[in-house]
């Protein structure tokens, strides 16, 4: 809700005032483009809050450190792409056009990220995205860093889990007709075939924004599948699992956005839902636990994968600025030469030629208490 | 002069269950001012609307200058030679006085779209403007050419409607209560204009409540009541016609 943003602005403003005598210089700016209105605003709000939080934490420590040991205030410039490519293009141009912005994060939606790539490339600015679509990192752009595991990673994990651990053979695939859903479907179906020799019993797509999933659920049940794999966004996934349950579906529901936003919407229908995630707050390692605790303290609820992705991204940029200073060129060059960087999500490899920095993923399953239990981990 | 300019026969129009026109016959001779009168609800406005194609008739013939236009669209009827004014002033209020008249000339300047796109309409445009200014001068509105028509005083708006109708170069001009709301001076002015129009060879069909004027200006008068002709003749004949008196004043129930 906006009140929270207002509060965070206020806090940031007050902090800035407090540090004014120490750092009267220009702040170091980084950009963020997210979906703040329209479908997908769920993720967008979480992204904004996580990135802002990371920036606030830096400022609480006196600002962003430069190579010479001095500190400067740190600022996040946020723009909204409404999940639309043309609006995204405008938004990204605005970020890139502001020469004081040294790196930016976003977009989140693949269909928006793809067309904005060449804007970032032209400007030679490091761009951190959480989009998963394959082609984003496969067209030779040198400035793009994917701060999240790829479809190949987590679809592989999901397929392994469903086929090997659960022993399911009759899979139905349904996906959102957007870049995210389509890319997930393509990769999942390919892996299913290549690694397990299986074909989906039925494939169905639906439109983003659909409200009634009786027809999709009906088709799935009629096809006699024992797993419905849904690849898409949280609201539609939550509606679909509700309709499946209503119609008496007894099989497994697997979903690639089964995070806490999904849980909030699906409520008790989430029980038993399986899903691959890049990160989950119940991940048992120390870094994840610490992050989860701090986040819980600050926001009074569970972080989602996007919280970590953008928190990590901010910190990676901060570390890089500490090494080479606030310059687009220097940052890009430095990051491209950085072999490993340890974040909350796992170990990143910024120097990966495609820009796919990380391959960590987990598969979770919601238990009776609606807690996502980690059932498989990949690094 | 033997064949009438307008020949309306058996004109019938029903609205739902209501018969507004029940087989009306009217012949308007070329070069005359023909009056059409009748009490409220007698079908005068329906007659004009039906003849000009605004509403289609149920049956009947409307022959203008040898061509049957019954049921055709208003622009076709206009092209066949009938122009009209409206009872409740239907000027293009947001447009200038001159533009209103130019609209009337619309048909005579080509369709306009082609020439607008090919950008070769300067000469034609100048010509139609001259014609329009001439018409405005005829009704005494030349000095108001650039004014927004909606801002004109009422009487001048009536005159503008007449000029606009004349711009379509009609053979027959149908005027629907052109004198409504005018003072005697203005009425005299309009009457003079009507006479000039007729003198130029345009025939007029005049629907009017100001019976005194109708009686003085018309060559012949038709009277409608309940959608039927009840009388036709010269003004004197009409004034003396018992049916007309009854139509207007009613009858006594008890003959005193």
């Amino acid at each position, binding site marked *: 809700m906006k009140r929270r943003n207002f509060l965070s602005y206020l806090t940031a403003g007050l902090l800035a005032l407090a540090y004014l005598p120490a750092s009267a210089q220009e702040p170091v700016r980084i950009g963020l483009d997210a979906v703040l209105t329209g479908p997908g605003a769920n993720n967008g709000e979480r992204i904004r809050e996580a990135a802002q939080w990371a920036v606030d934490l830096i400022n609480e420590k006196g600002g962003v450190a430069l190579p010479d040991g001095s500190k400067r205030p740190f600022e996040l410039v946020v723009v909204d792409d409404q999940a639309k490519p*043309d609006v995204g293009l405008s938004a990204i141009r605005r970020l890139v056009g502001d020469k004081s912005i040294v790196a930016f994060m976003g977009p989140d939606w693949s*269909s928006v990220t793809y067309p904005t790539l060449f804007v970032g490339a032209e400007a030679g600015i490091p761009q951190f995205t959480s989009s998963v679509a394959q082609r984003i990192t496969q067209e030779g752009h040198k400035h793009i860093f994917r701060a999240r595991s790829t479809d190949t990673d987590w679809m592989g994990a999901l397929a392994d889990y469903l086929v090997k651990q659960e022993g399911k053979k009759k899979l139905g695939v349904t996906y959102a*007709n957007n870049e995210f859903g389509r890319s997930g479907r393509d990769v999942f179906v390919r892996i299913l075939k290549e690694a397990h020799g299986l074909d989906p019993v039925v494939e169905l797509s639906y439109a983003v924004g659909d409200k009634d999933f009786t027809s999709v659920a009906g088709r799935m049940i009629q096809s006699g599948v024992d797993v419905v794999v849904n690849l898409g966004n949280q609201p539609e996934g939550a509606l679909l699992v509700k309709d499946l349950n209503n119609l008496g579906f007894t099989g497994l529901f697997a979903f690639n956005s089964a995070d806490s936003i999904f849980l909030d919407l699906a409520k008790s229908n989430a029980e038993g839902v399986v899903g691959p995630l890049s990160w989950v707050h119940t991940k048992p390692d120390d870094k994840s636990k610490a992050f989860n605790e701090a986040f819980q303290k600050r926001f009074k609820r569970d972080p989602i994968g996007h919280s970590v992705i953008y928190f990590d991204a901010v910190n990676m940029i901060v570390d890089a600025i500490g090494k080479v200073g606030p310059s687009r060129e220097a940052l890009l060059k430095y990051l491209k030469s950085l072999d490993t960087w340890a974040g909350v999500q796992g170990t990143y490899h910024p120097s990966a030629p495609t820009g796919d920095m990380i391959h960590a993923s987990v598969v979770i399953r919601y238990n009776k208490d609606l807690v996502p239990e980690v059932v498989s981990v990949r690094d | 002069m033997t064949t009438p300019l307008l020949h309306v026969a058996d004109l019938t129009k029903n609205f739902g269950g209501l018969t507004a026109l029940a087989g009306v016959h009217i012949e308007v001779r070329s070069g005359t001012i023909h009056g059409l009168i009748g009490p409220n609800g007698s079908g005068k406005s329906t007659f004009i609307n039906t003849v000009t194609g605004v509403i289609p008739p149920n049956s009947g013939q409307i022959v203008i200058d040898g061509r049957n236009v019954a049921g055709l669209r208003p622009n076709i009827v206009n092209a066949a030679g009938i*122009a009209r004014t*409206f009872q409740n002033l239907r000027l293009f209020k947001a447009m200038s006085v001159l533009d209103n008249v130019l609209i*009337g000339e*619309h048909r005579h300047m080509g369709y*306009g*779209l082609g020439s607008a796109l090919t950008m070769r*309409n300067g000469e034609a445009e100048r010509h139609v403007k001259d014609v329009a200014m001439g018409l405005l001068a005829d009704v005494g509105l030349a000095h108001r050419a650039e004014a927004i028509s909606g801002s004109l005083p009422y009487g001048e708006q009536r005159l503008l409607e007449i000029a606009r109708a004349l711009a379509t170069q009609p053979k027959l001009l149908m005027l629907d209560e052109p004198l409504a709301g005018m003072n005697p001076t203005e009425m005299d002015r309009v009457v003079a204009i009507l006479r000039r129009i007729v003198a130029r060879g345009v025939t007029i069909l005049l629907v009017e409540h100001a019976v005194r004027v109708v009686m003085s200006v018309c060559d012949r008068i038709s009277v409608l009541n309940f959608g039927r002709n009840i009388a036709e003749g010269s003004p004197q004949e009409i004034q003396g016609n018992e049916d007309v008196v009854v139509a207007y004043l009613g009858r006594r129930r008890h003959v005193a």
Partner: protein
Amino acid sequence: MSRHHPFYLAAILAAIVIPPFLSDYSLHLVIMVVIFAILTLSLNLISGYGGLISLGHAGFFLIGSYTSALLSVYQGWPFWLSMPTAILLTATSGLLLGFPALRWTGHFLAVITIAFGSIAQLLSVNWVFLTNGIDGVSSIPRPPLPGISLTSNVNYYYFVLICLAFIVYLMMRLVASGFGRALRAIKDDETAAACMGIDVAVTKVSAFVISAAIAGFAGALYAHYIRFLNPDSFSLDVSIRIFMMMIIGGTGSIAGSILGSFVVYVLPEVLRPLQDYYYLIWGVIVILVMLFLPGGLISLGSVLRAKMAARRDKLDPQVGSTETLS
């Protein structure tokens, strides 16, 4: 009119002189303003002058964009061939939409045009064979022009500015022509217009065809500027935004359409603190304009002047006296 000349001259001069000095981002904004101005002008032709509501102009925009983009990317047609084809195709779709507009006006037409825009968008999403679906069309080339590279945004700006100038000239001719007068007459009073010999059907359908063609032209300019198309860019929002631009700038005014596009597109960028609220603010302005300033922002100057003059002369402002029927 002549009173405004200094203002218009200054605006034209600014449009020519300033852009090379703008930042990349500002330049992007003004290019989009010019493209949207062309779109708004096309809507203004049928809505502002013709009184026919369209909430489906994003549909024409889409057809124009996709036609030109698909032909140049997949068929290798040069812009100078694909763009006219795009115009031809949108004009045809305008013809199809023009027929319902004969019969339906007002809110019915609003819904029919919404339906048209939505169907166009849904087809672009789902007719994957033709449109590439949600993957969109990428690597759309900039138009080739001998001697000048339009890959530079400054050059492209001047290119679209010339296109806008041409459309403005065309619109001025159209509005002043018999066709334009006929269109305005139909808006004022359809029956009276018909009785003056105007073929209402032909005029309305022609207006739709021309409007669609201009919107298609804007679409082609957009496609070859932005170089990536995706169905998401052509939603009902876009139609409503164009509609707002027309209303806020001033219906039935060429300068108003351009001003409206500029104000609606650029102001939120300038007033960043208001960014979250800008749609709300535009909504409020749309209502205020309809209630108090039917001529839109472009008429603000003359309305204020009239008010002041009226106060000076101690006369009532010359606003048409309206009958109060309680």
